[in-house]
């Protein structure tokens, strides 16, 4: 590490990410962020103070050894750095791209008190990409088979990370996925321009090389019940990482008009079914050239949908959100990117009614202005409609992106699994055990829509508990 004093380190300004030009990228699906060069990464690593008490680590939900990996980057040992990250995080190339760092590690970074925090996310991404591009991805060591079988339901980040740890420990692991592609939200939800699908595929190929088996087109609860997995298929434990895939609607008039999508449908058509390549691919999506598109919501899903709409040619693409920008749950970087690309933000505004023409097509939306009142249960100030402030806007397509709930399919077919009032699966927070013997759960199905890193962490926690359960037989 170069010999800089802390003072000198604090003087170095944060190195911005290299990005595709906003005007160009708003018309293509290529990744927006192009990544650091080795030189930039080492220069950014020099900003790290190597704190005796690295608060960044506490800010990270899975306690990546941030200080250590950044130290290795500063020394130019990029492969060493990625190895260090992988001790705690199974999916650095993905998390480096999609984690809300500004409210996790970077928020807790000591440097943030004086200015901009160390770009921990960009550095994580850089070393993970370095490893992938070097072709030297290390396949973790796999212990000799112990003859025990574990079923993982769902191939999102929770399922994948659970599968990886158990496979390494010598378990015979099969991942069951309902869709035809593996990766969960990482492939059907998050767009290519934010998370290239090749990266997800590389991760999954790695698991295949380790010996994890994958079975797509398999809906647990329909093709096999959980009891059948135990009794007929001989599994010793089951992990449920089925996510929160049930889209919520607003419950207002006109939501069933033609031209109204859930964000899940809109994004699934584009990402999973590749409708942006219609007619090369068979699944269509409405042609948005010259169209006005409204997206309701302020989370990552809303940002992904609105930026996808721009890329499909929308003339005007609006975010319509009932609170102010400060309360938006989306990653700060996504909001910034959306603005640069020309997304129009209508804050403190809420839809009241969707208006159709005689043929059942959406033609306008009625909106109402909101103001912020007292904080609600979520700690955010509650939006209150301002009476009489209604107005309408012409709109061709509307996308509802107000969140997702847990899909009740598994619970319906397995009533012994206890669920909360919100329909999430109830687990012991330490062991991820459900109320049914041998069944564990983690990720969005437990937390409700959350983050990739939390799902990943839950998958790993469950893997450790599953190992203990099978080895000791104790429930």
């Amino acid at each position, binding site marked *: 590490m170069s010999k800089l004093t802390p003072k000198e380190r604090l003087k170095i300004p944060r190195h911005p990410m290299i990005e595709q030009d906003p005007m160009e990228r708003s018309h293509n699906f290529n990744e927006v962020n192009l990544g650091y060069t080795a030189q930039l990464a080492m220069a950014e690593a020099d900003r790290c103070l190597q704190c005796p008490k690295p608060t960044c680590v506490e800010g990270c939900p899975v306690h990546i050894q941030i200080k250590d990996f950044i130290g290795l980057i500063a020394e130019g040992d990029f492969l060493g750095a990625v190895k260090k990250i992988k001790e705690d995080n199974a999916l650095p190339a993905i998390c480096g791209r999609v984690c809300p760092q500004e409210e996790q590690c970077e928020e807790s970074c000591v440097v943030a008190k004086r200015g901009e925090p160390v770009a921990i996310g960009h550095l994580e991404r850089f070393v993970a990409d370095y490893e992938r591009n070097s072709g030297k991805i290390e396949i973790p060591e796999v212990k000799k088979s112990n003859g025990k079988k574990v079923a993982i339901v769902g191939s999102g980040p929770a399922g994948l990370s659970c599968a990886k740890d158990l496979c390494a420990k010598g378990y015979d692991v099969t991942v069951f996925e309902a869709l035809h592609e593996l990766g969960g939200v990482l492939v059907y939800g998050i767009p290519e321009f934010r998370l290239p699908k090749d990266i997800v595929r590389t991760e999954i190929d790695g698991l295949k090389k380790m010996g994890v088996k994958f079975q797509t087109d398999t809906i647990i609860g329909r093709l096999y019940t959980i009891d059948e997995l135990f009794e007929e298929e001989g599994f010793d434990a089951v992990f449920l990482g089925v996510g929160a895939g049930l889209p919520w609607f607003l419950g207002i008039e006109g939501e069933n008009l033609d031209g109204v999508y*859930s964000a899940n449908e809109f994004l699934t058509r584009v990402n999973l079914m590749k409708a942006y390549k219609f007619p090369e691919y068979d699944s269509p999506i409405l042609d948005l050239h010259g169209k006005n598109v409204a997206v309701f919501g302020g989370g990552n899903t809303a940002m992904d949908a609105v930026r996808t709409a721009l890329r499909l040619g929308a003339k005007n693409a609006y975010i319509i959100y009932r609170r102010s920008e400060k309360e938006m749950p989306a990653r700060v970087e996504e909001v910034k990117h959306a603005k640069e690309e020309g997304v129009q933000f209508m804050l403190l505004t809420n839809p009241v009614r969707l208006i159709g023409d005689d043929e059942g097509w959406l033609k306008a939306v009625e909106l109402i202005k909101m103001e912020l009142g007292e904080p609600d249960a979520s700690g955010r100030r509650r939006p209150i409609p301002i009476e009489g402030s209604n107005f309408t806007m012409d709109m061709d397509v509307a996308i509802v992106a107000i969140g997702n709930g847990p*899909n009740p399919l598994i619970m319906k077919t397995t009533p012994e699994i206890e669920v909360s009032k919100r329909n999430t699966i109830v687990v012991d927070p330490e062991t991820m055990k459900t109320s049914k013997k041998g069944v564990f759960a983690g990720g969005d199905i437990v937390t409700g829509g959350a983050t990739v890193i939390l799902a990943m962490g839950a998958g790993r926690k469950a893997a450790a508990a599953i190992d203990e359960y099978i080895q000791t037989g104790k429930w």
Partner: protein
Amino acid sequence: MFKIVDARFLAENIKKFEIEAPRIAKKRKAGQFVIIRIDEYGERIPLTIADSNVEKGTITIIVQGVGKTTKELNMKEAGDSILDVVGPLGQPSHIENFGTAVSIGGGVGTAIAYPTAVALKEAGNYVITINGARSKDLVILEDEMKSVSDEAYITTDDGSYGFHGFVTQKLQQLIDEGKKLDFVLAIGPIPMMKAVADVTRPYGIKTVVSLNPIMIDGTGMCGGCRVLINGKPKFACVDGPEFDAHAVDFKNLADRNRTYREYEQEALKRFEEHCRLEKQIKEMKEEK
């Protein structure tokens, strides 16, 4: 990959496939469906499971070639494969001994109604089937339907076979004759299902229809299949596909089903052009 073990046309443009899918064969119940994707470029479309054979490990689907995907599917032969078949999806038909049950099928809807008619018979109902087609050569599953019916009627729009007229006219006739009908199942084109619902509504006859909205995942994830039941949105792939006919908003369903009509026509045109060219190339090669 799911292998097609048998494929044959039942009528012009209507083809029956037996597909190797042992686990689905074992688990499926009347009224459920699968979603298939032909190949990497394909779309996901729902198809009702018409029958299954647990010993052979196969399911039967019956496909009417209307759009690109169904026409492409109907070009497949025994020995070919389908990339993805996922199921069984949806709620099974609610079956009980209603008394006198009428199963009405319009066009390829007959195939979809068949498994439920079988189940109704097995549950002890007096089963009446009415199956409609445009003309005689489009009548399908006549023998199968007869074998599960206490009374079986065929109607043709042009009168070339059976009762001359629509299925609803035959249904009205039965009602007018004073038959006490306890349950009606109607499956077919949206206007037909709506017409059946209109016929039975004044008599308060319990009537169920199987809806066919556009679907993607079939697991409740996209919400694209939502239909209005008593004015409230329901996901047909998990809450349905069968619903109380008198509660369905058929206009909304018809509207939503034409969302991509232009795109579908374009895809079909391109596909037919492609097939025509392939055929020409093949002929040229053969001449050489």
